[in-house]
């Protein structure tokens, strides 16, 4: 680069969960020095709570979140100023899963079964939408709050189906030889094809340091492209960040995601307005947003390296 920065930008990245294959591009980019090349030094922080607030408040410059969280955060009366700047995976990979033996093949079959929930309104809205679409009665489902620590255990001790991300829990079921029925959300209701997860930043960073975002995304995109071509290397990086994870699971999950990072999009990170608007409309309809919002302000793809690549 011609204008050499005298000092590096130290930034914090707030992970949305335990390090997993959604994050591998970030870790690869750091390992392979792509961030360093851009004059950035990244520190990853993991927790599953308040990562959005951390980004909004400036404790972290970037973070990861789900699309619905970005929308809800912006629609809240607190008006949390976070903006999605890149999609990790192009299509929703989540859906309702159940052990094969329960015979839950379509949303109609939810009736009379027990749903193991996470205690969010969103999943119940998913459930209701899918069932209404098929003319099933939502009230026939008994809903519990999951107590078991994982999907399979929950199925074994307390419930019949749950909402999972296939790329993680679904893959684990494959590895455990635990056959499941899986109903992908958008296979029933196309509106539910949302971006999950996305990389977020705050309006303040966009205002004050757009260049940082550009450089950050450039390096990050390189990382994810590397992950696609080098799944082994991606998993290596992930293991370096979070020792002790099950390599077999990581690899299988990584292979599952590899084809889905870019998928039908023109380039990595791309987000279509239509997806945002449709999903936001659905949320609005289901009363999941406190107030109407300007969906266009919730995401910004202008910082992505784009078509010409990083």
């Amino acid at each position, binding site marked *: 680069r011609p204008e050499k920065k005298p000092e590096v930008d130290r930034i914090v990245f707030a992970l949305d969960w335990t390090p997993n294959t959604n994050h591998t591009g970030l870790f690869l980019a750091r390992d392979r020095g792509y961030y360093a090349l851009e004059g950035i030094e990244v520190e990853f922080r993991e927790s599953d709570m308040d990562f959005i607030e951390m980004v909004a408040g400036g404790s972290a410059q970037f973070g990861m979140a789900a699309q619905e969280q970005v929308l809800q955060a912006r629609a809240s*009366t607190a008006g949390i100023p976070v903006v999605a700047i890149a999609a990790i995976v192009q299509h929703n990979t989540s859906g309702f899963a159940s052990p094969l033996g329960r015979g839950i093949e379509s949303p109609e079959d939810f009736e009379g079964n027990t749903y193991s929930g996470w205690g969010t309104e969103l999943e119940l809205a998913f459930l209701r939408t899918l069932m209404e679409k098929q003319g099933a009665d939502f009230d026939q489902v008994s809903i519990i709050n999951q107590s078991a620590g994982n999907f399979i255990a929950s199925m074994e001790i307390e*419930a019949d189906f749950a909402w999972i991300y296939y790329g993680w829990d679904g893959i684990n079921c494959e590895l455990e030889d635990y056959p499941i029925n899986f109903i992908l959300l958008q296979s029933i209701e196309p509106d539910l094809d949302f971006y999950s997860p996305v990389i977020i930043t705050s309006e303040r960073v966009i205002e004050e340091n757009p260049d940082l975002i550009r450089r950050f995304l450039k390096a990050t995109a390189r990382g994810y492209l590397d992950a696609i071509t080098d799944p082994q290397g991606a998993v290596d990086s992930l293991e370096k960040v979070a020792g002790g994870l099950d390599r077999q699971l990581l690899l299988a999950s990584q292979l599952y995601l590899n084809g889905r990072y870019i998928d039908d999009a023109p380039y990595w990170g791309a987000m279509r307005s239509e997806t945002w608007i449709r999903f936001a409309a659905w949320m609005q309809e289901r009363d999941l947003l406190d107030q109407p919002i300007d969906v266009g302000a919730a995401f910004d793809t202008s910082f992505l390296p784009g078509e010409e690549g990083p």
Partner: protein
Amino acid sequence: MRLFSTDKRMNPTNAGGRFALRVLPPLLLVVILIAALQLLADTGVIRHYVLPAPGEVARSLVQDFAVMGNYALCTLRIALPGFLLSALTGTAFALLMDRFILLSHTAYPFIVISQTIPTLVITPVIVLIFGYGDMASLIVVILVCFFPVTINLLQGLRSVDDDLLQMMHTMGASRAAILRHLKFPASLPSFFAGIRISSTYCVMAAVLAEWAGGGEGIGIYMLRMKRSFRYSAMFASILWIIALSLIFYAVALFAERFSMPWRERPAGQTDRRSLS
């Protein structure tokens, strides 16, 4: 030096005065704190997603009163029996461990261990054993709350004055009689120290139980609010949790006062500070 006779118990303003002394200062502090928070929120120093403005919280509290009240009732339905059972379990453990040395040696480490495992980890095992439902939630509450009672009561039982014990033995008192007439009254202060701690924890424990996979109560409601970024409603539900907890605490305090009449300071000896 001149001494004046003041029969303090005859002074009618005194009870009211003491009450004012107990209630006014914290109330005043609360008011000041709320005002300060409102100011900080209004001037934008504290963002709403860190701490919402008290005014908004109040509005939410009023608006959603019925809804939250219902959820709170659900939590109470676990917290109250859970607390009572904890007091019972804690007492039983302490008594058994005081009575049977071997049991004490055997059980003690497990009791301590039961406290060192985060609730979120232990809940699945409880559900596995007892099945999903209120029973599991109750057990979570008990698991959290029995421990302070056990430790404190056991300490109390074991610090009973040796000479009094000796006296009871000389009168041929049975173990049960020694317990009833000596050990239990002697350890009431310790017992109540444990009860105070447990009463403080029990609503929180019921909330934990909800989170870890139990019925729907104010804890679940709170989490839902938090997850959908409705901070004022979330803080309003925290206020509910606090209020419920304080009720438990106040009742415990009240029970403590009334169960030890002999500890009332004898009249005329309330003030021990020597004059100049």
